[in-house]
């Protein structure tokens, strides 16, 4: 998903029919469409940052220090005189990377473990359930902090600590799905035609579990973003050279007591919007694929 405007035109041309068909699917479709638009808008903004941000986000003393939003600097400036608008436009990169990486790691680990454990059952399943439940019982942020403390700073480490916290969610969802799918006649039929265990898992069970996985993934994203912000907040984020919402949130928090609200507010809103976008998508997909009983 790099660069050129031609790729973007391609994406848009496929996007419009997708959105219109979603809008036709009722409220759930709207949720997904809106969430998708929000997420894509923010991601695109971050990617286009070098071209669209009015000033260099890292350049200091662009204007008066700590000046409130004005016509020259619509989002104000921070302690170093950096333009907040430019920082907000460019600051999403780290967060998005961390969230994306954590989801990928989570899936890579959680899906096979979940599938294998629930399909084979027995002692292995019992042990894994115990482990997963224990991790799940921990408040997510606390656990992430603990792991981040052990691993140190950096995008990958942040992603890893978030991933570990989230694996149990995939595990649980996959497990409950697999347990019910295992009993279905089409799995029996697969057995009857002679399919081996791994074939049944990969071609009969996994494809039917994927919708739930995707829903968990969207919530995973939202949570990862907030957790990444949290980790950065307490100083376990990445280094300070690159503009980063998490960092601005941290700095902005101490400034808040002095009445300087704009340094925390705007990055904060962006974080919330990004997380909201994913959550809306997750809600919409969940409603679409598992509609509520009223209907």
């Amino acid at each position, binding site marked *: 998903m790099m660069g050129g405007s031609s790729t973007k035109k391609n994406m848009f041309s496929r996007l419009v029919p997708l959105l219109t068909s979603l809008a*036709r*699917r*009722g409220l759930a479709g709207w949720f997904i469409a809106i969430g998708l638009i929000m997420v894509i808008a923010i991601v695109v903004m971050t990617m286009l940052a070098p071209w669209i941000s009015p000033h260099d986000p890292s350049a200091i003393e662009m204007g008066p220090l700590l000046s409130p939003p004005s016509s020259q600097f619509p989002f104000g400036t921070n302690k170093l005189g950096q333009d907040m608008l430019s920082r907000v436009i460019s600051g999403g990169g780290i967060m998005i990377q961390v969230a994306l990486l954590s989801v990928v790691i989570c899936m890579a680990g959680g899906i096979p473990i979940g599938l294998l454990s629930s399909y084979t059952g027995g002692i292995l399943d019992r042990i894994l359930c115990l482990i997963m439940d224990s991790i799940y019982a921990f408040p997510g942020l606390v656990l992430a902090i603990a792991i981040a403390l052990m691993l140190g700073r950096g995008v990958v480490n942040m992603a890893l600590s978030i991933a570990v916290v989230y694996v149990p969610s995939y595990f649980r969802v996959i497990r409950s799905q697999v347990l019910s799918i295992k009993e279905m006649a089409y799995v029996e039929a697969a057995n009857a035609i002679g399919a081996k265990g791994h074939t049944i898992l990969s071609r009969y069970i996994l494809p039917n579990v994927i919708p739930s996985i995707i829903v968990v993934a969207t919530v995973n994203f939202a949570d990862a973003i907030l957790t990444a912000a949290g980790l950065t907040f307490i100083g376990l984020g990445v280094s300070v050279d690159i503009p980063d919402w998490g960092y601005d949130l941290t700095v902005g928090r101490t400034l808040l007591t002095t009445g300087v609200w704009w340094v925390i507010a705007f990055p904060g809103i962006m974080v919330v919007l990004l997380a909201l976008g994913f959550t809306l998508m997750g809600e919409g997909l969940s409603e679409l694929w598992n509609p509520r009983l*009223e*209907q």
Partner: protein
Amino acid sequence: MIEQTNAESHLLTVNGLTVEYWTRRGKIRAVENASFTLDRRETLGVVGESGSGKSTLGLSLIKLVPYPGRIVSGDINLEGQNIRRMKDEEMRDVRGRRISYVFQDPMTSLNPVEKIKDHFVELIQTHEPKVSKTQALERANQLFRDVGIQEERISDYPHQLSGGMRQRVMIALALALNPSVIIADEPTTALDVVVQAKILDLLNTLRDRYGMALILITHDLSIVLQRSDKIIVMYAGRIVEYASSVDLYSSTQHPYSQGLLNSIPNIELIDQKLEAIEGSPPDLLNPPKGCRFWPRCSFAMPECRIEEPPLFETKKNHLVRCYLYKDETNDQ
């Protein structure tokens, strides 16, 4: 054509009932222009396969068609009163007290955490608040005797009873308020054949004893032929034939009815040659133009594809929706 029947002369008169489901993908006409009458001590059998609209018809009589369904037109007259126009509160009084419904699956219709006796007390006291708990229980015991369950079982929970007993409890609950009409929707599908026979006998006995009318909704043509006085055959939301059970059997007219009759294995025949109806029921979102049945009909004529046939009365009280009979009408 059907004469506009005098609403007061029958216990239940339904005229031109049309029910639609307004789904996201479009409108589905589940029932179109259904008309029939029913008197006391009469059993009406409504028979049809999947998509025929028979369950929707039954539910519409007590106005419990699930969302996104709605009754679009037509009249439902119970003892001279038009219940289609009733508001919700009035309708709540009708349900259970004047028209009762026995659902298909007794397991999900009974509250698993309530004892059977509580089901009765709650039901009776909701509709007749002046009745005391003791009186309600007395009535429940009488009903248990009617349906043939031992009185002690009234203190059980639903899961402690067998399928057949649960269905009998449902019937007893349906009788509790002395309704004029009982609608039984596939009352025996979940039961074994021996119990099935008992339950159906029971329904008819109670019908006679209490002077009620009974509507049997089922896909099983054998059951309605043996146990109802008159039968409505439904296909894709339309009534395609309406006749007494004797007439329907001895002079089956609509090609669908014929096909249905010929596809049922009859245990009393030796070397029976079964026939099938080619094709499958239509997609109600995109039904065929003209007669709904023409794609599967071996007698289809050009006019069948253009416009839907009306109901022709071929003899007194035998109506059939088919152009094959357009010249045989018995119009007054």
